[in-house]
């Protein structure tokens, strides 16, 4: 006989109670891991998208809210608020390259699809795009489409197929080589064609800017703001504000999960207190045959910790499965649509797995402290006389 064996025998004799208490901590940890895992993947994905934007600065209309700034990274539809004249003025500043974006929306087979109006040559240079199939735009007013590889894969589209945008049919001229970012999940039109199609006159949504000398970025911002009445945000600021939004959402969700874990902790306390009360006589017997107070304390604390270890391991497993299953559903959300086709579901964070398992153990040990202390403080005579 040894202490772990004794603990195991104690735990498994009330199988129903054992399973329900275990479920409490398992569900708590599973939801914690799911939300943490999704939040972590979301942050990584946003960082990836920011680096793939390829811009040092983003010019937006004044007064844009944080959600609109997020949309620069996610490729969502944005208001058309910057006149093309401003694009020209900014592009004329020496030492920088400016490319305008007109981000719109269409639907294909009842799925939302990003439509982006671009200056074909400028954008190709800016992004270093390559063509996988077909050909790229040859004219600024060409009424064809170039589509991302993700869209081609998702809807099984090939060069020559037609796609209806705002009631007008466009042939697909080319398919871009996979970039691994949101560029893969958009449909591109020459800017002029897109502006006409969506009836936005000469307006664009935002301007992405690459500067030649990154050390002079502040002077570029000043010069852009002197040139036009616009807001300029650096890629780092943009990333920071996007991550702060995502961080706030993640923390809120994690707090909800923490409440679930707290409820599970009280479940463990309740189970252990019931066990102490039910096994009062046994505690007395153990003391009579030589168990020290510290041994009784250890027996109950290990018993409580067992819930944490097992619940933690199962919970982490379920959490990882849930987060991978939840990936596609999350990508159906407008805010997170850019995650579609990304590797969010395959993210395996070893620190998260280990951290959550230890957290589960920690919570269960803390929960077990008071019941274990109560058990160890029982007087042998009082305990053994308990009917």
């Amino acid at each position, binding site marked *: *006989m*040894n*202490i772990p064996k*004794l603990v195991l*025998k*104690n735990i498994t*004799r009330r199988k129903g109670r054992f399973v329900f208490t275990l479920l409490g901590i398992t569900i708590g940890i599973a939801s914690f891991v799911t939300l943490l895992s999704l939040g972590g993947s979301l942050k990584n994905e946003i960082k990836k998208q920011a680096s793939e934007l390829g811009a040092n600065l983003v010019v937006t209309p004044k007064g844009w809210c944080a959600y609109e700034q997020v949309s620069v990274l996610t490729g969502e539809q944005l208001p058309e608020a910057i006149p093309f004249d401003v694009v020209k003025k900014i592009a004329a500043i020496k030492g920088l390259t400016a490319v305008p974006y007109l981000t719109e929306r269409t639907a294909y087979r009842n799925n939302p699809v990003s439509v982006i109006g671009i200056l074909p040559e400028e954008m190709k240079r800016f992004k270093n795009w390559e063509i996988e199939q077909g050909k790229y735009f040859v004219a600024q007013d060409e009424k064809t489409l170039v589509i991302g590889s993700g869209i081609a894969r998702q809807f099984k589209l090939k060069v020559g197929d037609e796609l209806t945008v705002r009631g007008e049919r466009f042939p697909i001229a080319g398919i871009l080589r996979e970039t691994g970012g949101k560029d893969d999940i958009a449909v591109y039109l020459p800017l002029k064609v897109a502006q006409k199609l969506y009836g936005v006159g000469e307006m664009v949504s935002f301007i992405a800017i690459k500067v030649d000398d990154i050390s002079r970025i502040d002077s570029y911002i000043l010069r852009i703001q002197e040139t036009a009445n616009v807001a300029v945000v650096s890629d780092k600021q943009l990333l920071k504000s996007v991550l702060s939004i995502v961080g706030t959402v993640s923390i809120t969700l994690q707090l909800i999960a923490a409440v679930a874990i707290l409820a599970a902790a009280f479940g463990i306390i309740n189970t252990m207190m019931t066990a102490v009360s039910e096994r009062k*006589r*046994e505690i*007395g*017997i*153990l*003391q*009579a*045959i*030589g*168990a*020290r*107070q*510290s*041994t009784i304390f250890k027996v109950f604390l290990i018993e409580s910790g067992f819930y944490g270890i097992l619940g933690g391991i199962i919970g982490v497993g379920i959490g990882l499965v849930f987060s991978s299953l939840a990936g596609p559903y999350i990508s159906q959300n407008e805010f997170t649509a850019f995650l579609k086709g990304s590797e969010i579901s395959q993210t395996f964070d070893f620190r998260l797995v280990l951290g959550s398992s230890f957290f589960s153990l920690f919570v269960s040990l803390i929960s077990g402290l008071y019941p274990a202390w109560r058990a160890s403080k029982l*007087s*042998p*005579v009082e305990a*053994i006389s308990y009917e």
Partner: protein
Amino acid sequence: MNDIIVKTEDLVKTYNSSKVKTLALRGVSLEIPRGTFSCIIGPSGHGKSTLMHLIGGLDRPTEGSVFIDGTDISALSSGDLAALRARKIGFVFQFFNLLQNLTAAENVQTAMMFAGTSEKAQRERAGQLLSLVGLGDKTKSKPSEMSGGQQQRVAIARALANDPEILLMDEPTGNLDSESEAEVLNAIFKLHKEGKTVVIVTHNNEIAKMAEVVFEIKDGKLDGQWKN
């Protein structure tokens, strides 16, 4: 070696509940010689079991002292008392007090675990002790699968687990039929013949007649003491 293995001096035990103060023992002094078979007799509720709990270190006296092998155990820490119970004293209770979720062998092994015996040695000795009390074939049986007499013999085997010098038994046959009582008493006599100091708390005069030394407790006091 001290010939007196158990000695009590002016033992007083008071139980204080919220409203009532009960004086269970009122200055009991006695000496139990090493290797004897002693009985503590008296009517129910007069302090016999309280005395046994104090001698066995399960409780502390309100006043007075208990000496085991010359050591005043009233002054020991709870950890040292637990060590004393593990190595020097074996308890047998009226209601067997076996751990219901463990087998007979595991019940015996648990007592050895607290004394730090290795698992291999635990298994070997548990088998030997259960054979000694005639339960060699019941090692894997749970208490619920055994008769009262068998359960009490498992309790005796458990009390012997760490080879204690003193066996304290509180009404060991009080809950048994006559056949089981005989089985248990046989086992007890066998142990006494092997040199163990056996102290039985009982109100069974037939058992008291078999004892070498008898202490009679009445109203929390030592009312009489004689040798058979």
